[in-house]
């Protein structure tokens, strides 16, 4: 009977039902679309994981494995049916027209073990003994290289054999410093680029028969090779890592989609509350006839469950239509995964039930005495009871935010940020209405009517104000953050961006290089030694390499895992560079004197220290090519990484690393474009092993990537704003229905349509303007907080963007609400008299 009555309620209140479903389904659409997108991408990466790694298992290290290590891994590797290796490094490619940094991948015959490297001319890459290279189309375009041209790598001239058409490995890779170039391992050795301390990756790739357990082999190798600098990676992990790049973006997109869901829930909640307020007397009648209140509440519980289900279904269909279109745009096969469908089902029905809970509680205590009252009874109960009954919904939303962000920190920040924004905006409404009540607005009739309506209907004013305000927070926050990060990359505070960044400078090259640059009118800056080491112990306890990757649950765990499982680059510097500042502890005491028995001082980057649980006074023990070196943490530093200066997580006081084998990093300050090209080309001719990064083109590439990420976020924000507008439309449409009598009355009293329209424009335009204005203020405050505390970056503000958005949102609010009201305005006021008939 309950279900039957629930269906009857839905059928008889079609307008409410449709508005409710549209509202909630729009919020669920963004949620489902994003989760489907994410899962499809992850699944795709998993399917192609062997091609991504080009093997079943790979070992990567900044040095060749030593004999002992080779012996340790031999039992497993004997089981491999095929193996190969690569040596990878960044180096300068020189042609008569200029020089450029490229990612050199020196391969052996069988590479790749999975996937393939297709060539432009057709066929796949096959090595022979001749000095040949295969270059990416990007490098060919940048250096105007054609097939048959000759280029120089170190001491060796090589001929361009072909361009790479499709590279199964490259196409899965994310951001790379430079375009790729393939050559044979034996040719690389002839270039003379491999020098001690050079930034090189030695990778070994293995293929196993299908019966072999790759994950078991990976686990075995991880136990045997304990150096954090050695990476052992299975194809499954490689797929996950590639997926993670998208997953990080997806985390934030998910949170933006949650704002849409929040607004949709707000709208649906308002609609349900208004609907139930109109049904209260009927419910009271049923109760007076003997129906227990709980059973009465169950009818409406069934109704919202059905409406929630219908919203999920609408979202399913909308996503099923949108996914192939998006897939076509992204050239990616997208599907509706079962898990996404299931989670959306739970979220949709759950949201529907939770938002109705506060009102259904009220039915439980509804007394039929309201039937004797003349006025309409509101569904909202006592203030405390209302607030308490919202908690289950809020708690579930919090869990959803953490789940979506894969981070307690980001999820909590988002949830409390949204709660704070909502509470702040909600608190403004009664204050604003109190002021409005006192304002002498009686001189202009439209102004008076608009203000009176707002004051006397605080709930609808609140719902409208929140939906516009939250929309404004989001709409301004994303471009504001975009601008902050962009300006941080383009013009970081505290340091001047260099033109060229140099690495792999040999110790004996530092002085000749300085002299050379001096003769060219430039100077070598920020010369920093780089010593490869491994962290062996912290306060005497062996440093644990984390290997439980399967147990990782949050992004914070992943970050700690990455930081822990890496080789260490040590440096020494005194004083600090302009891109870093001590945040706690004391500066170095000066140059280290070997004659003293004191432990050398070290400085650690503060986020790194926090992640690994380091404290001031901790003693770290490093192994530098077999020699143990101790260091005591005397300070933590804040580093501005976007300065493009040589910076390090761990720095010793000067004098400690003097005898260690090392290379140098350095920068060259601001140069104009012709000077930059000229100096770079001449420098590479003399110092062919030094790699040079053109910082401005790197910034450009980073900005392009960032623009794409930011664009995706803004697109999702647009969906949330559309949801916000749908909420606006639903609320104002509902208001139009409830105010039909008043509008007609005004017309009967002789009011012209223009006056009524004017009243609505003032009312909704006013709400739109004030809500977006305060939303903008909240958004700007948030962007400052995020920049200062989360990203640790500088904050820049441009008033033009918020002004544009404030006016845009005011206009959209006015248009949306006017559109919702138009039907009521055009109706003839006959119904006022029909009641007497």
């Amino acid at each position, binding site marked *: 009977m309950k279900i039957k009555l629930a269906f009857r309620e839905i059928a008889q209140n079609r307008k409410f039902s449709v508005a409710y479903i549209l509202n909630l389904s729009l919020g669920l659409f963004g949620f489902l679309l994003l989760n489907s997108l994410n899962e499809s991408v992850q699944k795709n990466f998993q399917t192609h994981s062997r091609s991504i790694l080009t093997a079943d298992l790979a070992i990567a290290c900044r040095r060749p494995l030593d004999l002992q290590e080779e012996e340790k891994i031999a039992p497993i590797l004997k089981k491999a049916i095929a193996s190969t290796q690569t040596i990878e490094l960044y180096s300068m490619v020189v042609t008569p027209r200029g020089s450029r940094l490229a990612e050199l991948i020196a391969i052996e015959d069988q590479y790749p073990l999975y996937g393939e490297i297709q060539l432009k001319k057709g066929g796949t890459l096959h090595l022979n003994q001749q000095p040949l290279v295969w270059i990416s189309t990007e490098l060919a375009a940048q250096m105007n290289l054609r097939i048959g041209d000759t280029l120089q790598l170190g001491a060796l001239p090589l001929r361009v054999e072909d361009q790479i058409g499709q590279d199964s490995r490259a196409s899965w890779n994310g951001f790379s410093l430079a375009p790729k170039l393939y050559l044979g391992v034996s040719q690389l050795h002839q270039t003379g680029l491999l020098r001690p301390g050079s930034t090189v990756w030695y990778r070994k790739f293995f293929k196993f028969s299908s019966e072999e357990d790759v994950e078991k082999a990976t686990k075995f190798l991880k136990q045997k090779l304990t150096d954090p600098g050695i990476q052992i990676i299975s194809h499954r992990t490689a797929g996950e890592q590639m997926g993670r790049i998208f997953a990080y973006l997806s985390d934030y997109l998910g949170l933006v989609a949650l704002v849409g869901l929040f607004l949709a829930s707000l709208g649906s909640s308002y609609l349900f509350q208004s609907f139930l307020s109109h049904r209260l007397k009927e419910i009271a009648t049923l109760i007076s006839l003997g129906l227990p209140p709980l059973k009465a509440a169950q009818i409406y519980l069934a109704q919202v469950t059905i409406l929630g289900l219908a919203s999920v279904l609408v979202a399913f269909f909308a996503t099923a239509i949108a996914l192939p279109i998006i897939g076509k745009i992204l050239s990616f096969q997208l599907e509706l995964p079962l898990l996404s469908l299931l989670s959306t089902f739970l979220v949709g029905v759950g949201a529907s039930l939770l938002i109705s809970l506060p009102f259904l509680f009220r039915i439980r205590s509804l007394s039929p005495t309201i039937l004797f009252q003349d*006025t309409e009874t509101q569904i909202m109960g006592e203030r405390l009871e209302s607030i308490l009954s919202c908690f289950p919904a809020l708690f579930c939303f919090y869990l959803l935010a953490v789940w979506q962000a894969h981070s307690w920190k980001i999820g909590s920040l988002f949830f409390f940020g949204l709660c704070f924004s909502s509470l702040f905006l909600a608190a403004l409404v009664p204050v604003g209405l109190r002021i409005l009540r006192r304002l002498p607005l009686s001189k202009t009739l439209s102004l008076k009517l608009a203000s009176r309506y707002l*004051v*006397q209907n605080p709930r609808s004013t609140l719902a409208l104000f929140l939906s516009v305000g939250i929309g404004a927070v989001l709409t301004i926050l994303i471009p504001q953050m975009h601008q902050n990060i962009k300006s941080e990359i383009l013009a970081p505070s505290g340091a001047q961006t260099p033109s060229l960044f140099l690495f792999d400078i040999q110790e004996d090259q530092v002085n000749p290089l300085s002299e050379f640059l001096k003769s060219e009118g430039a100077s070598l800056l920020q010369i920093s030694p780089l010593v490869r080491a491994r962290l062996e112990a912290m306060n005497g306890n062996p440093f644990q390499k984390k290997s439980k990757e399967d147990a990782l649950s949050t992004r914070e765990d992943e970050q700690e895992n990455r930081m822990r499982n890496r080789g260490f680059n040590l440096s020494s510097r005194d004083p600090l560079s302009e891109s870093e500042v001590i945040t706690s502890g004391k500066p170095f005491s000066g140059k280290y004197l070997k004659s003293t028995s004191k432990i050398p001082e070290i400085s650690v980057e503060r986020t790194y220290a926090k992640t690994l649980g380091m404290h001031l006074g901790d003693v770290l023990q490093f192994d530098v090519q077999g020699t143990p070196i101790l260091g005591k943490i005397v300070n933590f530093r804040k580093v501005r990484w976007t300065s493009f200066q040589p910076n390090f997580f761990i720095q010793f006081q000067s004098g400690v690393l003097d005898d260690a084998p090392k290379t140098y990093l350095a920068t060259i300050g601001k140069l104009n474009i012709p000077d930059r090209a000229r100096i770079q080309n001449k420098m590479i001719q003399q110092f062919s092993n030094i790699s040079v990064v053109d910082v401005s083109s790197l910034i450009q590439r980073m900005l392009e990537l960032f623009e794409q990420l930011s664009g995706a976020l803004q697109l999702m924000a647009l969906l949330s704003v559309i949801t916000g507008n749908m909420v606006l439309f639903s609320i104002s449409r509902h208001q139009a229905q409830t105010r039909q009598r008043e509008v007609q*009355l005004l017309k009967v*009293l*002789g009011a012209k349509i223009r006056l009524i329209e004017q009243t609505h424009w003032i009312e909704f335009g006013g709400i739109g303007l004030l809500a977006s204005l305060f939303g903008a203020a909240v958004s700007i405050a948030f962007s400052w907080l995020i920049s200062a505390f989360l990203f640790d970056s500088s904050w820049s503000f441009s008033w033009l963007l918020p002004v544009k958005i404030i006016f845009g949102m005011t206009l959209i609010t006015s248009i949306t609400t006017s559109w919702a009201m138009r039907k009521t305005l055009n109706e003839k006021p*006959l119904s006022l*008299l029909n*009641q007497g*008939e």
Partner: protein
Amino acid sequence: MKNTLIAEVKNLSKTYSQAGTSIEVLKGLEFKINAGETIAILGQSGSGKSTFLSLLAGLDRPTQGTVLLKGQNIFDLNEKELAQFRAQNLGIIFQQFHLISYLTALENVSLPLEIAGISNAEKKATQALQDVGLDHRLYHLPQQLSGGEKQRVAIARAFVVQPKLLLADEPSGSLDPKTGREVLETLFQQVQLSQMALILVTHNAGLAQKCHRQLRLKDGRLT
């Protein structure tokens, strides 16, 4: 009673189409009303009383015929002119009071004055509320008033613009007999004082007897 003609209805007809069938609700109605005159329109439910009122108020258009108010055929006016004409010359009292819920009693009464652009609206509205005995309820919202008080506010709102013609649709229909009597007393008192014409729609024969003339609406015709 003055013999100044206020309104004249000539050959007024209204036909509705419903499910492909034409229903002739009003058939060539004719009558006149002078200043200070009160006419009761009697009829059963569904006889077309409300349709007749809505035509008189210019809220709907007839199929045929004219309503001359102060010599002006109201159906010759466009919507904008009609709204203005209504604001200055017509007062309407509804069975369900129809006060604006978010305006106080005083604001509800001053509303038609403000719409018509008449100065000293608040002062005049206060006076009108005093005239109906509600000077102690000026700043109360409709929900804070009793049914009788709401209808008094509605009467004050109808009178405050000093219209030439007052249309009342079952003004005591939603009130208990005692309150209804009190409200009607106020209404007739005000009509007498202001010398305006009143057309009162009712199916209460007793109430109709209080009017100068009684017309019965039956089968679309006035008898």
